[in-house]
C-alpha cells in the first residue's frame, strides 16, 4: 500500500506515507497494535510509522492510556456483606 496517503495532511514527510503505511491504515489497526495481536511484520511497520508520524503518535498514545485506564478502574465493585454471609453459611451447611 505504498501509494496510500495519510489522513492527516503533513503527517508524512514529502508526501509518502512513513513505512508504506498510511495514517488511515495505521489508525484502523490501533487496537490490534496495542493488543499485540498483529502479525510481526505489520506490527513493526506501524511502530516505524509511529516513530516518525507526529499526528498518529499522540492518537495511539491516547488510546493506550484509555485501555490502561479501563483496565485499572473497570474492576472496582462495592462489596456485599449479604452475599458474603450467604456464601459462608452455604459452606458451613456443607454445600461443598
Amino acid at each position, binding site marked *: 500500500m505504498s501509494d496510500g496517503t495519510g489522513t492527516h495532511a503533513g503527517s508524512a514527510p514529502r508526501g509518502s506515507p512513513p513505512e508504506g503505511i498510511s495514517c488511515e491504515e495505521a489508525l484502523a489497526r490501533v487496537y490490534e497494535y496495542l*493488543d499485540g495481536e498483529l502479525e510481526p511484520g505489520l506490527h513493526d511497520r506501524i511502530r516505524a510509522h509511529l516513530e516518525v508520524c507526529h499526528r498518529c503518535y499522540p*492518537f495511539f498514545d491516547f488510546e493506550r492510556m484509555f485501555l490502561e485506564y*479501563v483496565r485499572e478502574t473497570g474492576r472496582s*465493585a462495592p462489596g*456485599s456483606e449479604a452475599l458474603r454471609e450467604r456464601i459462608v453459611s452455604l459452606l458451613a451447611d456443607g454445600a*461443598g
Partner: protein
Amino acid sequence: MAPEDADKRAGFEAEALVHLGALRGLALRLTGGDEARSDDLVQEAVLRAYRAWERYEPGTNCRAWLSRILRNVFINEYRRREARPAPVPYDEAAEAPVFPRLSAGEDPEKSFFGGLVDRAVVEAIEALDEEFRVPLVLSDLEGLSYREVAEALDVPVGTVKSRLHRARRRLQNRLYEYAREMGYVR
C-alpha cells in the same frame, strides 16, 4: 463436622473469600449490572471452587483461578442461551474516535482521564450492549487474547476484533459525554 472439613473451610475462607469483591465486580460487568444474576453467578463459582479446592495450588494467583471458574460458569450459561439479541447496527456518532475532539495544547489526555471517576467507567461498561460488553470485559478486564475470546463466545476471531473495536469506541464516547456533562472537557 470432621476436623479436616473445618480446616478446609477455614483455608478456603482465608484464601478465596477475600476475593469476593473482585468476583462480584467481574460478574456485574459481565451481566451488565444485574445484581441478582451476579450474586448467583458468584455463588455458583465459589461453590464450584470449594468443591475443587484440593486442585488449587497454594501460593498461585487465587483471584485468577476463581475468575476463570466464574468466567466458565458465565460462558456456559451464555452459550446455552439460544436467543441472541439482534446485532447492534453501526452508529457513527457513538463509535467515532474521541481523540480528535479533545482540545489540543494542554495535555487533553490528563484532563480527560484525570476528571473521570471509577463509578463512571463501571457504569459505562455495564451500560454497553451485551454484544460489546462481554468481549470487552473478557479482553480488557480479564486479559484474554482475541483467540481466547473467540473460543469462549464461539464466534470467529474477526468478529471479536470488530466487536472489541466498536465496544471500546462506544465506551470512550460515553465517557466523553460524561466528561462534557461534568464540564471538564469542552
